[in-house]
């Protein structure tokens, strides 16, 4: 599952819709992201290809909105509300996710187990 910028990408994706939780003035999605084109991809523990600079879900708050929606740690975020996330900086991704005027974000994510499941079902 390598994502080389500029190359077409084949991925099994899952659509995840997260309804943000309002906590005081904060809107909470309940997960954290890592990665981005400005980050050292070698330190990303979730990517198979250590040159992958994509945005990954690094933690999911148990019971939080993201988890409820089915997001899992290690998921790679492909899109947020239709915006590409495979070629963004960390901060761009964060901002895209945390817009205060959006109560819902729709993610397109991919993960290893999805790939495997597909492969499994094809075999």
């Amino acid at each position, binding site marked *: 599952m390598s994502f080389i910028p500029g190359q077409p990408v084949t991925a099994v994706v899952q659509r995840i819709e997260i309804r943000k939780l309002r906590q005081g003035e904060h809107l*909470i999605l309940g997960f*954290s992201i*890592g990665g981005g084109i400005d980050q050292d991809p070698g*330190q990303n*523990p979730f990517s198979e290809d250590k040159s992958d600079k994509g945005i990954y879900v690094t933690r999911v708050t*148990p*019971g939080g909105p993201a988890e409820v929606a089915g997001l899992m740690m290690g998921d790679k975020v492909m899109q947020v509300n239709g915006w590409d996330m495979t070629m963004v900086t*960390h901060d761009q991704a*964060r901002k895209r996710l945390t817009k205060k005027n959006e109560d819902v974000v729709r993610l397109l994510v991919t993960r290893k*187990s999805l790939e495997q499941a597909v492969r499994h079902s094809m075999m």
Partner: protein
Amino acid sequence: MEDYDVRSAASILASVKEQEARFERLTRALEEERRHVSLQLDRSNAPPTGSSVPPNSQPLAWQQVVMQEQSPSNQTSLAMMQEPQEVVEETVTIEEDPGTPTSHVSVVTSDDGTTRRTETKVTKMVKTVTTRTVRQVPLGPDGLPLPEGSSPLGSYTDSIDRRYLKNGERYITTPQATSTLTRSYNNYNDSYSDTPPPDADVTDNYGSLSRGGNFRPPRYPYAMANSYRPENSYVTLPIRKDDYGHMAQPQVPMGSSSVDLNRSQPERFQPEPYGLEDDRRSLGPEEEEPYDLEPDYSTAGRRQGTLPGTNRGRTMREGYEDPIEAELIDERHPYIHGMYAAPLAQPERGSMASLDRLAGRRSPSIDSIRKDPRWRDPDLQEVIAMLGHPIDPVKSNAAAYLQHLCYENDKIKKDVRQLKGIPVLTGLLDHPKAEVHRKACGALRNISYGKDHDNKVAIKNCDGIPALIRLLRKTNDMEVRELITGTLWNLSSYEPLKMVIINHGLQTMTNEVIIPHSGWEHEPNEDSKPRDAEWTTVFKNTSGCLRNVSSDGAEARRRLRECEGLVDALLHALQSAVGKKDMDNKSVENCVCIMRNLSYHVHKEIPGAEKFTDPSALQAPGSAGPQRKKKDDAGCFGGKKAKEEWFNQGRKNGENDKNYDTLDLPKRTEPTKGFELLYQPEVVRLYLSLLTESQNYNTLEAAAGALQNLSAGQWTWSNYIRATVRKEKGLPILVELLRSDSDKVVRAVAIALRNLSIDRRNKDLIGSYAMRDLVSNLPSGQQRPAKNLEEDTVVAILNTIHEIVTDSSENARSLIQAQAIEKLVAINKTSQSSRENKAASHVLQTVWSYKDLRNALTKDGWNKSHFQPTATSAPKAAKNGKPGYDDTTLPLMEKNQDGYSTIDQRDKDCKYKSAGDGSVDLAEREPLKNDTHRKHYIRSNRPAVSLLDACDVKPQPVDSWV
């Protein structure tokens, strides 16, 4: 008329004859009974034979005699007293949980060869009296004693008479029963109660005993004055409480004791009369007391113990003191003289303690002493004053007496403390005479026992701990060493004293006790073969003490690990236990618990741990992650530092995956020693042997806990440990233990399996082989399984299941095949415990996330809604709730655990204070694992803590909360 007269005369004659006949029967029966009694008394007087000891004898008698010998009865008699040879000790076998000392009282006695355990059936005294009374009581026209009014003795006599009547009947009807007697009093009475419905009769007696109500008071008043007399209650058996008071009071010399009588709690002491009686009657050599006496019994024994010889004698007499008794005495003499070859006590001697024991105990002549007004027991203040008496034997006897007074009597302990007795006793520890420091130590041991930590603190405040340690270094007397280490064990149960004990005594205890008794040798002599450990009491006590102090946090662990020879010796002892297949005892349990505690966080706490830290796993998420959270991060939701560890973790996982089977244990150039032994893969075999062989749940739990601790964390050694467990075929052993009946064993094993499944191969194996056993431990909805596991255990199992199904759809498939979904759904929907709900919900969500399994799930009738968290679990709560808090030991595991960011932090803090299912609770509920769990846990929620520097090793990848 005449006819009538004749008839009347005839009928009168007939009735008289009938009465005569009855009377004759009664007399005969009495005669026979008397014969039996005297026969048996003779027999009992003779040296007892083994066979005469009833097999079900209860463990009381020895104590009584013990006490008698130990307790100085009076100043004047001190010098004459036989030296106390028995020791009653209380031991707190408090586990790591200092807050809830188990009420496990171990009693150890040293044998003086003159007493033994005897049967404890006990209506004896009562009956002895009563039978005799039968003779005394005027007989009614029916040949039976007159029930009412014929006695000049007053109300309580009346009731006694009624009692006698009953007994008399019984007696008459059961002559054959006496033939079964083997021992005089006891058996006499036994047979007595034999024929009539035994319980009815016996309980009757006891019931009235307890009603009599002066059983409770004994301790104090006892000591203080002779007021307390068990026999009173015997005599007063049938009498109501007021009657009791009525008759007791005149005999009570001091007002205080009557007060005590009134607030007595008789029920608790019902068994005591047994002990009492037994003791008096026990003539043979005493048997070694088994440990773990039932508290009641030991209490009984103890109380007796506090009763000095005089009292004893007197008490014996008390029964006879009431009016009936007075009449009976003469009658009794013939028996007694005949029965006892031993010389009678000489009443005028003045010191009951000096009386011959036998005679002193039961000779009627004591009553003259009883009436001797010169007799009084010293009160507590006087006893404490005697500790400073210039004559050494007085000191030692006073201390011994204090020991007995304090036995299981918190009130007296407190009084001793308030009367400033503890510094005096502590001072006596340095006394050159063995007798004195031994007794002082014994007293301190009892004082230090119990939940009243003030006593422990008082000992510490007068430098008792260094004094004990000094004495430990100085003395070679085993008994003294037992007392010292027992006291230290007691003291070690109180948290604030743990470090004090470590500071003063760790190396001494190790050098003086642990190493020598473990059989370990610093430089083994090639010629001699390795010695085995000796499970002495001293070793048991010392290891118990170290076990307690080992739970005092990181610093305590560090000190123990670095204590020279300690780990080596403990390991040697355990190995020798395994070798000898002797691993169910308390010493082994203590050793394993110490090892377990020292293994806790070993990967973070040992010097140079960084060297071994998996370079890719510098920050284990569980440990480092939450700790690094700072409140400041809250604003931007971006724990910037935090991300790195997650990355690192992931990478480490990736690498581990490749390394599983190519694990090379490091080559060692020189033998490991000291704390390094804690985490060498060799210990795995040791723990597995214990897990296989031991029957002791605490040992099993500790051994599983040790594996759990060692397999947690990301460093080279935990990788080795995880692989070694697999290679040593440890996984089946652990899985087997999931079937254990013991809740805590199941829990420890489940968590260990969870940690072990960090290793990918282990995860696969555990998924295939343990799933069924894990699932079978789960409750079905609200119904608990047969085992009825605690919430913590269920949560631990759920978390383990979660771990093994995460990233493994194969394991999720086994989970489904194990019929777990139904249970999980039921727990999720219906469990009363929100923690169980959440844990189950997490498993379900994980399962549902495997799309390839959904078909199968749908076929089974499940749909997505079953796998959603229940509506009730508000996200916020869930956030905090799920984290299996037991994960605190498992730094690696908590991917989705607490403390993601400071937002959570705030909630969590609140939760700790308020929530019912809070994690703090859990930590406290699971104290055995390690006290530090809690600390660590709490700490982990605070901002800056250790390991922080570790994060700075690399530039940190950004990780943003959204």
